């Protein structure tokens, strides 16, 4: 039982380690700097959104519309390029993401619609707006050379995107563990009435969570559209599930009140290395999702059935 509870405590690290070891052994060429840097770049799309969702999930809420916001922000950023220029258009794209989040917050916090239902509805609405804005056709940006620059790898390891993701994780970790607002977030997620009673504004905290989650989806969407020089209404259609999986694998609970930045980092890297490893060995796409699904179930079941010996403090432990 001791061993098992130790395993549960460090499950993300262990699963990530196992994935990398098995992949390196079975797949030639998996373990290398190029794989690492490109894998990291790939993980950063999921990762940037996961940063936003970690915050929202800790507050006890969820957002299913992040994939649609991802597409919509990218489209806004690309279609405005001719009139505003690259930079300002990107900013407007991110703001569009934030606006979507404000709308989600309005529904969930002000009108008290269950977040699952509210964001399921906005997921459909934002996706449809994306189709409507573009006539269901992909839109091309103005500067393909910029996309190629954005895809460049610095110091043999980082792209602009993956550096942003890693910096984001560090900032999130500091915020969750050191800042008062970060700790308030856990209080809101654990028990909203208790948090309210101790003087925390539950409504504002949750609203901020929604806006933050959508803004991060907007950032990821704008970066994706810049990196591919394309805004497409079909981008991100399979993203939401993967992001939620990554966050949950990282030990954040859907019920709220528990989660960590390092756990999310581990979850994102696990999902990314699993995908890369299976792609490297030509595993069909549908089967990859079966594997990812089972790992998710395994981790969640372990989480429910085995109580860690020492009840780790939610914020401090890397992967409780």
């Amino acid at each position: 039982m001791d061993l098992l509870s130790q395993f549960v405590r460090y499950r993300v690290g262990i699963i990530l380690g196992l994935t990398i070891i098995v992949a390196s052994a079975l797949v030639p060429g998996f373990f290398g700097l190029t794989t690492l840097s490109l894998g990291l770049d790939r993980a950063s799309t999921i990762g940037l959104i996961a940063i936003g969702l970690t915050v929202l999930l800790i507050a006890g809420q969820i957002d299913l519309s992040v994939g649609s916001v991802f597409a919509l922000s990218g489209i806004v950023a690309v279609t405005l390029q001719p009139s505003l220029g690259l930079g300002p258009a990107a900013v407007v794209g991110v703001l569009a993401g934030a606006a979507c989040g404000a709308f989600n917050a309005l529904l969930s916090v002000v009108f008290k619609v269950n977040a699952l239902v509210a964001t399921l509805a906005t997921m459909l609405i934002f996706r449809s707006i994306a189709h409507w804005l573009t006539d269901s056709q992909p839109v091309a940006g103005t500067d393909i050379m910029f996309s190629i620059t954005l895809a460049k790898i610095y110091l043999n390891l980082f792209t602009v995107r993956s550096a942003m993701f890693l910096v984001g994780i560090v900032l999130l970790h500091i915020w969750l563990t050191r800042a008062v607002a970060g700790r308030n977030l856990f209080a809101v997620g654990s028990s909203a009435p208790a948090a309210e009673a101790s003087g925390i504004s539950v409504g504002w905290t949750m609203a901020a969570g929604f806006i933050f989650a959508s803004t991060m989806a907007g950032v990821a969407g704008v970066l994706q559209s810049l990196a591919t020089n394309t805004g497409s209404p079909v981008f991100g259609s399979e993203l939401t599930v993967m992001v939620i999986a990554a966050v949950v694998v990282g030990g954040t609970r859907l019920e709220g009140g528990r989660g960590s930045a390092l756990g999310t980092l581990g979850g994102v890297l696990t999902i990314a290395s699993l995908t890369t490893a299976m792609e490297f060995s030509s595993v069909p796409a549908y089967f990859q999702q079966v594997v990812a699904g089972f790992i998710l179930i395994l981790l969640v079941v372990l989480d429910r059935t085995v109580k860690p010996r020492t009840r780790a403090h939610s914020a401090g432990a890397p992967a409780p």
Partner: protein
Amino acid sequence: MAHRITTSLVSALALMAAVGTAEAKTVCYVTAADAHAYATPANEALSARADELGLEVLTLSQNFDVQTGTEQLNTCIARKADGIILWPLDPQAYIPGLARAQAAGIPSILINSPMSEQANEFIKSFTGPDVYEEGALAADSLSDAMNGEGSVIVIAGQAGNGTTIGRVGGFVDRLKELDSKIEILDTVNADFDQQKALVASRDLITRFGDKIMGVYANDDTMARGFIDAWKEAHGDKPTPPIVGINGQRDAFDSIRSGEMYSTIVQSPVEDGKLAIETMANILDGKEVDARLPIPLTVVTKENVEDVEPAF
């Protein structure tokens, strides 16, 4: 946790060194999907031909998700593939990935679908069907069936789709070129969907009645939709000559029974084969053409028993 990860990485490195690397040339194939009526036989043919050519194929399926595909190009580069075959689902989005591959010295070609002209400097060749030529062949075939005169309807695919534009454009231009007396009553979009074609055909049959002396459908699925609508309206009365494209198995049956006049076989097997053969030539250092079309076969009652359906 950091310590644990370090330990894992070290043991992983040790394992890597033990495994070693000695292998044939690897071609990374980013396909549209791995379970699809057209894509699956194309994928299988590509892999089978690669075996014969002694090439290793790493197949990655985008499952019709462009974003997945753009990321898979990274996997190909990380895997240090010797060549990349890409089935593009978007005219632009893959360009940075293709540029990255070029910078890494990996040659890329496109299979099945074209991309925008900006992609040309990053690819060695585009192999796949010539959809404009398919439209022209359909015009020839329908002219034969109608002895060059009469009025027809055109059931087109999705508006704005490259395949639709080519197949309609080739048809119209060819009729003009022949100075044909065939008149087009109307062109409707039915999105390559049998149900939509059925509904549109009902309207057309009501509107034009006996004036419909021939039908050109952008694919066999939509031709089927017209046949069903015709049967609803006219029972056993013989259909006017119908020309479809793709060469599906059920279209072959319709040609045998006389419900359809012809179809054009665009073989996924040829599609897959040509791509890997072109890549093999590139890897051997040979020059290849920038555009390599796959053979197209017009199938009528005459040769329906001799030709394999496309899928």
